[in-house]
C-alpha cells in the first residue's frame, strides 16, 4: 500500500491545523457562513438534511486494517456508530458536529487519512478497480497510475479552481469494474504489440443532469507521457470549459459541443507543446518508487485447487452460494478474491457499523495481508485470501451479518442517501432499495434471475448511478409527493450505456411491482444463458413497455 512520505504527512497535518483555526473563527463569529462555507467544503464537510456530513477520501478505494479501525473509532466517538460507503469509494459520516471536526480530522490524519479533494471544483479522489493487483487478466496495477495522478493533482495550482469538479477513474483490466466511461477522464491500461504498457484515454463521460459516455481520444499514450497528456486535457478544459453556467460546466458538455475530433485535436496540440517543454516527463525513479508500494504481497506457493474448499462447498449450501456469487478468481494459484456484501436483505446499501468495520479489519489483517478495498458498488473486497481459508472467512463474516451471498445479483443494489439524509433530494432512495431487496430475498430466485444491477438516485445529480443501472430508478418530486422514473438497459462496464426511460413515473407503492413485472418479462423472453442486459439489448424496450403499461 502507498505510505505517506514526510511531505504528504506534513501537508495533511497543516491542513488540519488550518481548518482547526477556521472552525474556531467560524464558531466565534470572526468568519461569516458565506466566508466559511467554501472552506468547510474544501475539507469535505457538507450540511445535510439532519446535520453535517463528512466525506472522507479513500484513495482508489484501498484501506489498511488500521485505517478501517480508525474509521470504526471515529464512527463511535463522533458519529452514531456507522458510516456509509459511497459509489466514489469514499466513506461518509452522517452526524458529526462541526465543533468536533478538527479533532476528528486530526485522528484521521494519524492514520494517513483526510477529507481533501472530496468536494469542490478540483480533481476529486481518483477511483479504481477493487480487484487491483489481484485480477486475473490485469495488465498493470491501476493503483500505481492512480497514485501518480493523486500526487500530481493534489493542490495543483492550475486545478484548484476548475470550471467544475473533475473525476478520474482507472482500470487495469479489459473488463471494467471502475466505470471509467462515466468519468470526466477514464484511463484504460493497455498493452501494445511490442508488449509496452500505455494508456487509452476517454474524456467527457459523466452522469447527472446530462448523462454522457466518455469518448476515446487516445488509443495509446506511452507511460512516461501520461501526466503531460492529462495536463493537456486539463488545459483545454480550463481554457474552454464553461464557467458561466453550472449545468454546462463539466467537460462532458465541452466534448459534446466541440465534438470528439476537435477535442482530440486541441488536446494533441497542447500535448505537443507540453512535450516540447519536457517538464512533465515522468521520471523512471519516481515511477519505480511508487510502484514499489504496490508490489504484490508475498503470496505463498500453493496448488490452485484446495481440498478444504471443495469439501466445505459440498458440506455447506450457504457457503456454496456465497462462493458462487461473492468469490472471484485470483491471478495467483491457491488464492481468491472475496467480496463482502454491504447489502443485507432489507438493509441500507453501503452502510457499515463500527463493529462491522472492526470485524472486517480483523479479518483483513489475519487473512488478506492487512488491507481491503471499497468498491464503487458500495461493497468491500478482500483481495488476497487463500482458498483454503475461504470457509473460515465466511464464518467470521457471517457472524457479523456480512456474508450475504448476493454480489452482482438483483439485491446488490446501488442507492444514494436520497431524502432520508440528503438536502438536495427529491425522493427517498434507500427505502426503495430495501423493499426491492425484500421482494427478491429468496437466494435461489436471485440466482435464477442472474446478474442484474438496480441503481437508485434520489435526484438528477445521479449519485446512485441510476443512468447506468440495468434497471435505473430516479426519484422525482411532483408537488411534494415522491415519484420514481424507471430506465432500462444502462450499463457501466466496458459496454457502457445510458438507460432508456420506460414510460411515466411510478408512485412509491407501484414501483416494486413494476420491478417485478420487468423481471418477469425478462424471464419470459430470455434465451439460454442471457443476462438481463443481453436480453434487453436483443429485444429492446417494447416488451417491457407493454407489460408495464398496456394492461393498466
Amino acid at each position, binding site marked *: 500500500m502507498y505510505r505517506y512520505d514526510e511531505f504528504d504527512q506534513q501537508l495533511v497535518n497543516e491542513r488540519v491545523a488550518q481548518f482547526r483555526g477556521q472552525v474556531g473563527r*467560524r*464558531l*466565534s*463569529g470572526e468568519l461569516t*457562513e458565506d466566508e466559511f462555507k467554501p472552506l468547510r467544503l474544501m475539507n469535505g464537510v457538507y*450540511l*445535510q*438534511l*439532519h*446535520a*453535517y456530513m463528512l466525506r472522507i477520501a479513500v484513495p482508489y478505494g484501498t484501506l489498511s486494517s488500521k485505517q478501517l479501525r480508525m474509521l470504526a473509532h471515529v464512527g463511535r466517538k463522533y458519529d*452514531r456508530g456507522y458510516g456509509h460507503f459511497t459509489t466514489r469509494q469514499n466513506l461518509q459520516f452522517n*452526524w458529526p*458536529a*462541526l*465543533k468536533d471536526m478538527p479533532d476528528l480530522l486530526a485522528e484521521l490524519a494519524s492514520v494517513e487519512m483526510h477529507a481533501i479533494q472530496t468536494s469542490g471544483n478540483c480533481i476529486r479522489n481518483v477511483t479504481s478497480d477493487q480487484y487491483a493487483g489481484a485480477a486475473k487478466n490485469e495488465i498493470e496495477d491501476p493503483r500505481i497510475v492512480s497514485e501518480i495522478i493523486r500526487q500530481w493533482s493534489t493542490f495543483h495550482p492550475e486545478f484548484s479552481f476548475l470550471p467544475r469538479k473533475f473525476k478520474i477513474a482507472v482500470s487495469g483490466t479489459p473488463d471494467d469494474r471502475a466505470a471509467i466511461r462515466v468519468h470526466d477522464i477514464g484511463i484504460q491500461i493497455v498493452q501494445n504489440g511490442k508488449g509496452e504498457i500505455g494508456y487509452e484515454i476517454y474524456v467527457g463521460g459523466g452522469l447527472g443532469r446530462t448523462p454522457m459516455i466518455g469518448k476515446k481520444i487516445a488509443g495509446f499514450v506511452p507511460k512516461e507521457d501520461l501526466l503531460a497528456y492529462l495536463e493537456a486535457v486539463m488545459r483545454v478544459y480550463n481554457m474552454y470549459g464553461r464557467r458561466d453556467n453550472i449545468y454546462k460546466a463539466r467537460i462532458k458538455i465541452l466534448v459534446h459541443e466541440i465534438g470528439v475530433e476537435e477535442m482530440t485535436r486541441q488536446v494533441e496540440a497542447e500535448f505537443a507543446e507540453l512535450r516540447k517543454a519536457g517538464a512533465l516527463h515522468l521520471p523512471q525513479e519516481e515511477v519505480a518508487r511508487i510502484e514499489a508500494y504496490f508490489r504484490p504481497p508475498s503470496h505463498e506457493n500453493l496448488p490452485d485447487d484446495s481440498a478444504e474448499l471443495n469439501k466445505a462447498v459440498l458440506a455447506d449450501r450457504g457457503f456454496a452460494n456465497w462462493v458462487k456469487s461473492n468469490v472471484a478468481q485470483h491471478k495467483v494459484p491457491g488464492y481468491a478474491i472475496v467480496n463482502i456484501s454491504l447489502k443485507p436483505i432489507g438493509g*441500507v446499501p453501503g452502510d457499515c457499523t463500527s463493529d462491522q468495520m472492526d470485524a472486517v479489519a480483523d479479518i483483513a489483517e489475519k487473512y488478506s495481508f492487512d488491507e481491503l478495498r471499497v468498491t464503487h458498488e458500495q461493497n468491500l473486497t478482500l483481495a488476497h485470501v487463500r482458498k483454503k481459508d475461504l470457509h473460515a472467512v465466511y464464518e467470521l463474516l457471517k457472524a457479523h451479518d456480512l456474508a450475504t451471498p448476493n454480489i452482482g445479483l438483483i439485491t446488490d443494489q446501488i442507492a444514494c442517501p436520497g*431524502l*432520508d*439524509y440528503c*438536502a*438536495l*433530494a*427529491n*425522493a*427517498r432512495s*434507500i*427505502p426503495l432499495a*430495501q423493499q426491492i431487496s425484500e421482494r427478491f430475498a429468496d437466494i435461489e430466485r436471485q440466482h435464477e434471475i442472474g446478474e442484474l444491477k438496480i441503481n437508485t438516485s434520489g*435526484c438528477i445529480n445521479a449519485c446512485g448511478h441510476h443512468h447506468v443501472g440495468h434497471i435505473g430508478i430516479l426519484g422525482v*418530486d411532483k*408537488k*411534494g*409527493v*415522491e415519484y420514481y422514473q424507471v430506465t432500462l438497459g444502462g450499463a457501466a462496464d466496458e459496454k457502457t450505456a445510458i438507460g432508456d426511460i420506460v414510460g411515466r413515473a411510478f408512485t412509491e407503492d407501484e414501483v416494486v411491482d413494476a420491478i417485478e413485472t420487468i423481471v418477469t418479462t425478462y424471464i419470459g423472453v430470455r434465451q439460454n444463458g442471457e443476462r438481463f442486459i443481453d436480453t434487453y439489448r436483443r429485444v429492446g424496450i417494447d416488451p417491457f413497455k407493454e407489460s408495464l403499461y398496456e394492461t393498466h
Partner: protein
Amino acid sequence: MAQHTRKGAQFQALTANRLSDGIVVYLAADDRWSESLQDSDVAEGKEAADALLARATPSVDRNEVVEPYLFEVSREDGGIRAVSVRETIRQAGPTVRRDLGKQAELAGVHD
C-alpha cells in the same frame, strides 16, 4: 432541489441548522430555537411569515444558526405537522433508521 414550501401556503414555520453541531432547529414564540417542531411558532399568511423569517436574522448574526427558511405546516389534533415529505423527515430523522434522530429522542414527532 425539492420544494420546501408552497407559494400561498396558509401556515408556515421557520427552521434552520444549529451552527455548532448542525442539528435541525425550529424558532419558537419566545425566539429561542427548539429541536422540536412541536415548539415552533406558526405564522399564518404571507405577512406573518415574512415577519417570522425576519426574526431569524439576529440568531444568524450571533452565529447560532445557519440556513434559515420557511416551510409549510398544518395544524392537526393540537399538533403541528410538516406538509412535505422532506420536512416530515427533517423533523423526525431518517425513515430508514427509526432508532436515530429526533424520532428516537423527542416526543411529538410525526410520521
